[in-house]
């Protein structure tokens, strides 16, 4: 498929909608929220978003629930010991890779 005008219009619509969602609150919302409840929600929101994104989607991230579970367990352990983002990310990948090799030999 060549890059046609049609594809460009699709991409434009995608990009504009996505950008507006990101841009509008940060650019136009200047007031500090005074409600303690709303401020508490905004404080907890990132952790809730990331948790909902990880579970259960992580279990289908490697094509095998077992290797994904191995990666997740290693990530949890490393994160409990406050390791850096990159250590935890690559640790999880390494664990999933090793689990995948182990599965090959066991089955």
């Amino acid at each position: 498929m060549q890059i046609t005008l049609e594809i460009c219009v699709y991409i434009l619509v995608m990009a504009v909608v996505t950008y507006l969602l990101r841009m509008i609150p940060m650019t136009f919302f200047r007031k500090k929220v005074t409600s303690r409840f709303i401020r508490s929600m905004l404080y907890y929101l990132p952790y809730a978003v990331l948790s909902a994104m990880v579970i259960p989607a992580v279990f289908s991230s490697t094509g095998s629930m077992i290797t994904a579970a191995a990666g997740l367990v290693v990530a949890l352990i490393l994160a409990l010991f406050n390791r850096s983002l990159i250590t935890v990310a690559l640790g999880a990948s390494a664990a999933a890779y090793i689990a995948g090799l182990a599965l090959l030999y066991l089955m």
Partner: protein
Amino acid sequence: MISNKKSGEFISGVNSGIPIALGYLSVSFGFGISAVSRGLSPFAAVLISLTNLTSAGQVAGLEIIVTAGTLIEMALAQLTINARYFMMSLSLSQKIPSNYRVIHRLLTSFGITDEVFGVAASRKEPLTTPFMYGLILLPFIGWSMGTLMGAVAGNILPDSIKAALGIAIYGMFVAIVVPPAKTDKGCLTAVLVAIALSCIIAYVPLFDFITSGFSIIICALCASAVAAYFFPIKDSDGEGQETSAEGEVTDNADNS
């Protein structure tokens, strides 16, 4: 002194962006492979990543392009899947200092992704513009380069490596969430409620109509509301900036 401080902030941002960029390289690599195998040109694939910088939205958008869906469908799909960025942007609007200029708001808001937001929102120090530009730079390059490499050379890597790289991005999420959840009961509550709801929506057939983008919104709003109700944060947070920001309220800022 001032420029030293600025470059220090920029470098601090770049450092925080390294793991995100590495995670993105592997994830967008997959997007590049998939876009080209579905019939898009490598140029179109990279153009999508350059202009969108989002994972779930791009995957859905790709599907709509190759199945020749309508533009309305495209807009609605992006609106629901990426509505979480609206919440993240709103959350960051509370955290950035009031002297953060409009041009920088317009530019840096483009770089709000789940991971960038996670790092920015959990940063202890104030969010300065050099820090935000530094933080966004490498993830943006990583996302676009990964797409290009996947689109051009996706078939080189063995499947076992490709599969293992798929979990890297989730490992990063875990690394952001676990340390605060260890010490903060409210945070732990938000995490556990979000996980429970997310599993219910994913596995109970009744909720099959809820798309993954919507699921994230529902889980996050409910879980953070529960945590906020039982563990409200201390009232003193961020008070220093309140008076100076008060005068700049715009029409759009009226829903608090």
